[in-house]
């Protein structure tokens, strides 16, 4: 059985020693993200995010479906985030580890439960036909901080996606072929983005965007999800050492500036996306 082996003692010790002097193993500053690359398209809703060596692919798709009986005027948003052995040796899609479950749950909370997608705008014929939008997140390479990379990929893909246009004529709904009529973007309420902090040592050493080694050594982590309106959409501090109230405040302030930068990068990426040839 392939088991992910943690870092050696000297790697862990070195990461801490360096951090105590304010430097990180990969040469970054403690408040720096790794290099972020967002590639959109050419197909609408296909986005690959590269955060350092971490890679996540997001794919948004849709199909016509029947609405749930208790919500006849709302579209359906389905979500799928599963870690496979592509991302790192030892990941097994059959038996997810607690870490994998945590990542998938956080992303789902960020994108789906924060109601970023306008579900009512996905209704075609009340009680009969609605759009079912699917977000598939494929983790391609795990080099730390999957959550932030996945949240950026998911929200960019939703903004980049276009669904076929529909005309409703009485009881009939005509779904237009993308070649006949230009597809339309989804109605997105807001763009929640995760910013993750790792805490090392006794919790006094904080880093933004922890690398794989930092994740393996950290004693606690904290993820804050914010949108461009400076609203908090989700918070997660699952276990680990207790943190000071002040540290959380500091994280929130930092996250606000980070989210602003990330939002700009997302908008830029969508603007410079390769156009679909079809």
């Amino acid at each position, binding site marked *: 059985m*392939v088991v992910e082996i943690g870092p050696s003692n000297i790697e862990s010790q070195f990461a801490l020693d360096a951090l105590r002097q304010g430097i990180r193993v990969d040469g970054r500053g403690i408040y720096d993200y790794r290099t972020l690359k967002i590639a959109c398209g050419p197909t609408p809703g*296909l986005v690959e995010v590269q955060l350092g060596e971490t890679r996540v692919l997001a794919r948004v798709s849709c199909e016509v479906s029947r609405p749930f009986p208790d919500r006849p005027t709302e579209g359906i948003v389905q979500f799928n985030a*599963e870690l496979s052995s*592509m991302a790192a*040796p030892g990941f097994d899609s059959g038996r997810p580890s607690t870490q994998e479950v945590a990542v998938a749950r956080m992303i789902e909370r960020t994108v789906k439960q924060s109601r970023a997608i306008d579900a009512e705008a996905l209704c075609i014929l009340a009680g009969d036909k609605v759009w079912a939008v699917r977000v*598939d997140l494929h983790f391609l390479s*795990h080099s730390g901080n999957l959550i932030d990379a996945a949240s950026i990929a998911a929200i960019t893909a939703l903004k980049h996606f276009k669904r076929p246009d529909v005309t409703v004529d009485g009881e009939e709904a005509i779904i237009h072929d993308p070649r006949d009529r230009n597809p339309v973007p989804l109605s997105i309420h807001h763009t929640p983005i995760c910013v993750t902090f790792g805490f090392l040592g006794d919790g006094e050493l904080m880093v933004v965007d922890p690398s794989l080694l930092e994740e393996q050594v950290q004693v606690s982590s904290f993820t804050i999800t914010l949108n461009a309106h400076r609203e908090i959409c989700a918070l997660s501090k699952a276990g680990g050492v207790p943190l000071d109230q002040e540290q959380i405040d500091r994280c929130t302030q930092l996250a606000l500036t980070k989210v602003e930068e990330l939002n700009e990068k997302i908008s830029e990426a969508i603007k410079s996306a390769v156009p679909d040839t079809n």
Partner: protein
Amino acid sequence: MQRPDRREANQIRSLHCMLGQLSRVDGSAQFSSGKTSVLCGVYGPIDVKVYDEKLDRAHIEVKFRPDIGVPTTKDKWVESAVRSTFEKEVLAQLHPRTLVQINLQVRENDGSVDATAINATTMALVDAGVPMKTTVAAAACVVLKDGSIVADPTKEEAELAVSTHTFAFANGSSDGPLYVDSRGRFSMAEYNRCYDLCRLTCDRILAFMRTALESKIQKESAISAV
């Protein structure tokens, strides 16, 4: 008959291949034919589960994930097709009691995805340095209602097809196929025309693979020569 993307009947879409862009695996490749694109990450030889351990050779495992939705029996079928194609070509006996794991992820499926998956697997296995008897290339074509045959069909063309044909061939002198999946309703005359077309296409894909590998290797060897 005019193809929607104005290709000639025997023309394949433009090929792209990126090697070694994943950092956690031992070898990786992204192989694309037009919009159809498959990413493959290979580990091996690595430790194997006791359940799968073979005393005289490496166990070969294939995992195939679709671009949309969770894996279904359709994807198990592709896994089995890819595994059967490579099982006898990987020199598994050189690494007994180990595992060679092939992870495939469809980035986008616009037709001919089985063939593209096989091509991505070849490149990733070579990138990982897993010993292989040969380099494998695969290609697909379809027979349309008017009897015309078109190479490397898009999803749209495949849906209109009377029969679809996927072949894999090996680098080298041998004439025969490594993998055949012909389905629909067809005659042996049509099968043979599809065979010839895919054989030619595979030769071009093999030449493309060689170029892609050469440029990577030459870049590396230029460095070590200094």
